[in-house]
């Protein structure tokens, strides 16, 4: 019953006209979104929802949690878009926000513990392996992308998260370190190990 009394006289909804928004350049859409324009926020959602979902899907273990995280990102965007200052490209900024959201989810699952644990000292120096023995690009290229994707999905969180942040969100080591609360050289090591793990998985499969 209370709801009816509280019924706010909102603006009259109009029939949605999507055409003019789609052609607009990103800057003006963002500007309008910062002014809490619902249509502009909707347009940003339309343009980037797949990209954000992709990141969440790689970062989190299930489709459901990825979908949840994605909608959370866009919900929070209404408030946080005001803080976007244009110093970095918007997609990158948005992916950083999305990355943070996923890390939050992972952290919550571990009841506040650090998501990515630091690697032990000294591990940063890894013996050079001869290129002949590492499968690297040429072998990976022969693999189907789907296989590579599956292998990435099967990586342990510790390796998967930094790898995805680096090559999907294209964040720098420093940015990743900031998000995960890690030293820069730790980030480098984790990414390197993630790749080695991937090579091992793929080499094992292709045998």
């Amino acid at each position, binding site marked *: 019953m209370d709801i009816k009394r509280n*019924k706010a006289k909102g603006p009259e*909804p109009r029939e949605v006209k999507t055409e003019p928004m789609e052609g607009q350049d990103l800057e003006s859409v963002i500007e309008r979104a910062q002014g809490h324009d619902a249509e502009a926020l909707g347009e940003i959602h339309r343009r980037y929802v797949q990209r954000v979902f992709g990141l969440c899907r790689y970062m989190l273990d299930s489709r459901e949690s990825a979908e949840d995280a994605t909608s959370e990102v866009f919900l929070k965007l209404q408030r946080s878009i005001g803080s976007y200052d244009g110093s970095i490209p918007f997609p990158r900024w948005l992916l950083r926000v999305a990355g943070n959201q996923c890390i939050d989810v992972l952290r919550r699952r571990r009841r506040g513990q650090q998501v990515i644990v630091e690697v032990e000292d000294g591990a940063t*120096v890894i013996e050079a392996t001869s290129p002949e023995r*590492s499968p690297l690009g*040429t072998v990976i290229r022969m693999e189907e992308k789907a296989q590579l994707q599956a292998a990435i999905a099967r990586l342990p969180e510790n390796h998967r998260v930094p790898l*995805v942040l680096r090559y999907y969100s294209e964040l720098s080591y420093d940015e990743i370190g900031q998000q995960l609360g890690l030293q820069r050289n730790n980030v480098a090591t984790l990414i390197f190990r993630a790749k080695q793990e991937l090579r091992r998985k793929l080499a094992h499969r292709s045998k």
Partner: protein
Amino acid sequence: MECYSEQTCAIFVDGELAVDEARQLRDHLATCRRCRDLVDALRAENRVLSESLRELPEEAASPKAFSRLRLSRVWGDLAVMAAVLALGSIVSVWIDELKIPEALEWFNPFSPSGLTNLMFNLSDYFAHGGTAMLTDYAAVVGGFFLLLLLGSGALLLGRRGRLRQPGLRLLIVLLTLSLPSFALERRHGEFVTVPASETVDDTLLASGNTVRVEGVVNGDLLVFCQTLEVRGTVKGDLMSFAKRTVVSGSVEGHIYNLSQSLDLDGQLGHSIYGWAQSFHVGNRGHVGDGIVVGAGDVSLEGEVKRSATIFASNADVSGSIGRELTMAGGSLTLTNTARVGGNLSARVRQLKDVHIADGATIAGKRDIQMQVRKSQFTRPRFYFHQAVWFAAAMLVGWLGLVLFPGFFQSCTQAVGSGWRSLGLGVGVLAGVPLAIIVAAVTLVGIPLSLMLFAAYLAAIYLAKIWVGAFLGRILLKPAGATKGDWLLGLLVGLLILTIVGFIPYLGGLVRLGMVCLGLGAFAWQLYQASRPAITA
């Protein structure tokens, strides 16, 4: 000079090496072929990684485990036999112990409470032109069942009666579904209570006036009653057929609801699917998945983790919905506290019936449109469809007359008994769905309920033919009773009924009356035919 480690090269390729070190490495690359190859390979690797990641990950579900399921013929036959035995035993046990109808008094159209309920529902139904929808739906679903029957018949014939894998799997599924009903605990009484100290380990089937669950039910909970209150915990699903359902405790599975009112003030692990007069999620209510409901009034004050799909004449949202909100119907209100995590799409009759408060949060797009009801009479397709349906009805009438002349003609005459047919028809129209539900909840009764449903829809379709033929007879007053006369009467009667059926409001009433009359006549004739004195 000594070569660099692979990790250093990888950091270099990522563009993350300190400026000085990067310069030294670059100098080294100019002279060292091995390191140059390594750096090239690392670059290629990064490229492949970025490209692969850019595409959305595929779901790694592998259905191989299921498609390779092969059973030998002996095992197959054994499974079929076991399934048949299991089904038979369960059905017999079930029929013995069935005491549900007493608890469903409110749903019985002849009881005072059932009558008010029926009147209430029917008035709402007329106002929304539901009868037209029902008959159309009946035609579509009836056709689908016919196709399914024909298809599976042909398949079985083609395989010479051999039950191959699909059939076998269906039986196995039925068998596994039927197993839990062995572990079914039944309780019946005026007041059925599961006290706070009690834990029911099986699926609980409760019927009575008031059912109250304060303890724990580890299986599913099936309830037929006037009032159901869940204050404790149901670990499985809740299937409720009640006048009023209140959940203030927790249900860890789904809720399937066919109550007149449903209030959720507790925790629900998964989704709600339901049909209700009024549907309410209180501010302490939490739905772990989504909701799909059709209701007169819907109010959402609590939290729905995923999407909400609502068909309602009036929907108020002041809580939070994690994903999309899809609404179709009369009016929609989102208050200041409402939160929608995805798109909002609404289909309403008038745009002014949508109120979205300034403080309401909607993450995705807003898509609010009017259901433009363009007059169907302006479209040529409408006339084509009507002509096809008309021809089909004539064809069905002719077939019926050729195949079962006596039955069809006496059905036509039985329509003339007026109130008897009408009353019986209302009873059948309301009672058969109930029987279908009762059959379906026994799990093993699902095939039976599907068959009953198909027959029900077929009878609804045939109703207009008997009523049409009767109407034509009254008007034309033919001297003879030849097939030609009967068909001419049918033609005239159907034409009149079709045209009258399009009059707003009255049309709906006429269609409903027609369905009831025809169903009643059909039921009466079935009853007569089953009496040996008459058939002899």
